[in-house]
Structure formats: C-alpha cells, structure tokens
C-alpha cells in the first residue's frame, strides 16, 4: 500500500464520519484523481481484513464486512444489557446532579480517567455531550430522567444538597488563573 493510501486509511480509521473525496484531497494536498487511485489501492489491501471501504456517492468510510455483523451485534447487545461498572454508575450520578460538568472535572472527582465511562454511558443513551472543544459539558438525557420517573433534575432525591457539595469541591479546586 502506498503512503497516500495509508494516510487515507489512518483518517478513516480515526473518524467514523464518512469523508468526501474532495475533503480528503484538500486535507492531504493531492488531486482528487490521486485520492481515487489511492482508494482503490486501499480497497485491495483490505481484502483479507475485517474492514472494507464503503463508498456512498462521493463519500467513503471504513466499516466491518457483513460477515462479521452477527458477531458484532451479539457483543453490542451484551454490552448494552450488562451491569454498569461502579465507575460508570458514579459518573452517571455525578452528571445527573451536576449537568454541564466537564470530563476534567469528573476525572478530578473520581481520580481516574473518564473516557471509557463517558463513552459507555453515551452509547447507552444515559448521558449526552453538549458544546464543543474545551467547553464540552455532559448532561443526563431526558430518557434517563424519565426512566427514573423524574421530570427534571431538580426532582432527583436530595438534589440541592448534593449539587452544592459538588459545586463546593470543584470551586475549591479551581486554579486562580
């Protein structure tokens, strides 16, 4: 596989969003023809792999081959039905009482990296991220609140005291910049 094909592969692997040939061309500073030819190269070199190049009009993306769908579906169902880890349960609770909290703040409270918990909770529709870049904040989803039978976060048990405790801890630890 040539260098360009590998670069395209790295981009398609790192993002799940389909990429247009035009966008790839401008990102990699080569012509669209060169992209098209590299895509063929990539397609061929993936032949023995679990992934394949999927083309939709002018857009391309990587996806698993259909013969693996059943396996992935099983795993996915298993993931969705399994009990949440203590880390995820705590993260969910913190987000419920302090909507808009950042990843760094959750990590400060829990003392461990929150990436996997946040991903697992998002995939299960329990939390959602809003905002972008540095100001991404996490919120409980409406479905999550409905599941608990509350109409709004303020109806969660001991809402005010709990929220205040989180606020106090976070405020004490904000660095004066």
């Amino acid at each position, binding site marked *: 596989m040539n260098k360009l094909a590998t670069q395209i592969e790295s981009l398609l692997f*790192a993002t*799940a969003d389909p990429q247009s040939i035009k966008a790839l061309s401008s990102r990699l500073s080569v012509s669209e023809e060169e992209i098209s030819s590299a895509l063929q190269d990539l397609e061929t070199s993936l032949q023995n792999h679990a992934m394949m190049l999927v083309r939709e009009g002018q857009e391309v993306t990587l996806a698993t081959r259909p013969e693996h769908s059943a396996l992935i579906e099983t795993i996915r169902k298993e993931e969705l039905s399994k009990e949440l880890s203590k880390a995820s349960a705590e993260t969910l609770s913190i987000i419920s009482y302090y909507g*808009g909290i950042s990843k760094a703040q959750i990590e400060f*409270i829990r*003392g461990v990296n929150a990436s996997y918990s946040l991903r697992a909770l998002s995939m299960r529709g329990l939390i959602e991220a809003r905002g972008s870049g*540095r100001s991404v904040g996490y919120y409980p989803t409406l479905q999550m609140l409905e599941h608990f039978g509350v109409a709004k976060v303020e109806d969660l048990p001991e809402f005010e005291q*709990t929220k205040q405790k989180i606020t106090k*801890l976070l405020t004490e630890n904000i*660095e004066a910049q």
Partner: protein
Amino acid sequence: METETAQFHIKQESFEGPIEVLLELIEKRKVFVNDISLASVTDDFIAYIQEKGMLPESVSSFLSVAATLLLIKARSLLPNLELTTEESESISDLERRVALYQIISEASKWLSAKYGKKIAFEGAPRNFGIVFAPDDSIKLENLSSLVVGALERVPPPAPKKPEARVFKTISISEVIDTLHERIQKALSVNFNDIIIHAEGEDQKQKKVYVIVSFLGMLELVRRGFVEAEQSANFENISLQKQDKSTSLSHESIESSYE
C-alpha cells in the same frame, strides 16, 4: 458554567525531593554514585538544606538522608567506626536509591520529550446509533449516595508551596554554636579516643568534630519538627520515614563512638 469548565485546572505541585537534590550534586561533580561520592557531597547537601530550606512535608525525608550522609562521611574518616545493622542498611539503601533515581531520571527525560508528540490514536467507535439501555441495578434512591461516596474519596488539595521554607525560620549557626560546646563536653571521652586514632591530623579531627555536631543538631531539629508536623496535622508524612529518621538517636550516635 462554560468559563468555569474551561478554566478548571487542579492545583498540583511537584516537589524537589532529597534524592533528586543528591543526584544533582553528584552529577555536578561528574562522579559515579558510590559511598565515596556520597561522602564527598555531604557538605554540599547540608549547605543546600541550609540555603534553600525544606518544605514541611519533606523535612523528615531530607533529614534522614542528611543523617545517612553524615554517617557515610563519618565512616570514611573513622575506619574503626562501628555501625549498627540499621545504619549500614540505611547507607546501602541510600546508595541504591540514588542509583535507581539516576536510571529513572534518564528514562523520564525520554518520556518527557516524547509525551503527546506522536500519538497512536484509538479508532472512532463505529456508529451503531444510540440504543437507550438503562441499568436496573442503579436505583434512584442510590444516586446521591453514589455522588457523596465519590466526593468523599477526593484527597485534600495538594499542599501549596509555602512562602517561607521551614529552615529559614531557624538560625543554624546559633544551633551549631550551642551544640558545639555541649557535644564537646558530653563526648569528651569518646573524642579523646578519636583524637588518638586520628593522631597528627588536625584537619581530620576538625572534620569529625563538625560531623558529631551535625548529627546532634540534626536530631534536635528533627525532633522539633516532628512536633510541628503533628500540630499542623500534615497527613502526607509517611510513618515509615519517621521511623527511619528516628534510628539516628543520640543513644545510637554515642554508642557508635564508644
């Protein structure tokens, strides 16, 4: 909320430790780590403490290292100096600690230079669409206690770097002056033995004198600070370390010179 989120940084301080200081002193002299080079930087190490002072939480570890250095130096000047097992262990421990720190310090230079420069990125999870999948084992009534439980495990904020380091509040030369006399009297018999042994070498006698003064002084200072630490309630001080520094009591010093 958004500005607060953006500004959120945790107060985190990194402290200079005694082993780090010691290795710097040895490397400055371009010598290998062994008991001879450790003995040769003893004065520099003590001068460093006097000049820069120490942070309250590292007082006991700095003093225990200083005490061990003095033992090493004393041993190199007094061939017949008998050391207790514990003292011998603290000497070989110190040599190992500096050697280990040297290895780690080298490795960390590479890590610091490479961190985040060429990242291997995880793939993006493929889009399956979100399926609402709650976990029935999490009960509404437990939510707030899960939060409180997590909050309770957060350690107190990292100690701030104090404006004035501890040692600056004490005049070391005053302590030395008083102790000089006291120790000279108290150990006069032993001192005679030492002087006989180091006959004709005034310089050596002088050095021994200084060492003994320092040993005594360090012990007193250490005791003083143990009290200060307790009243200030610094939770970070490891008890093990305090035990280690306690091994250098006046009794053991005196018995070593008998």
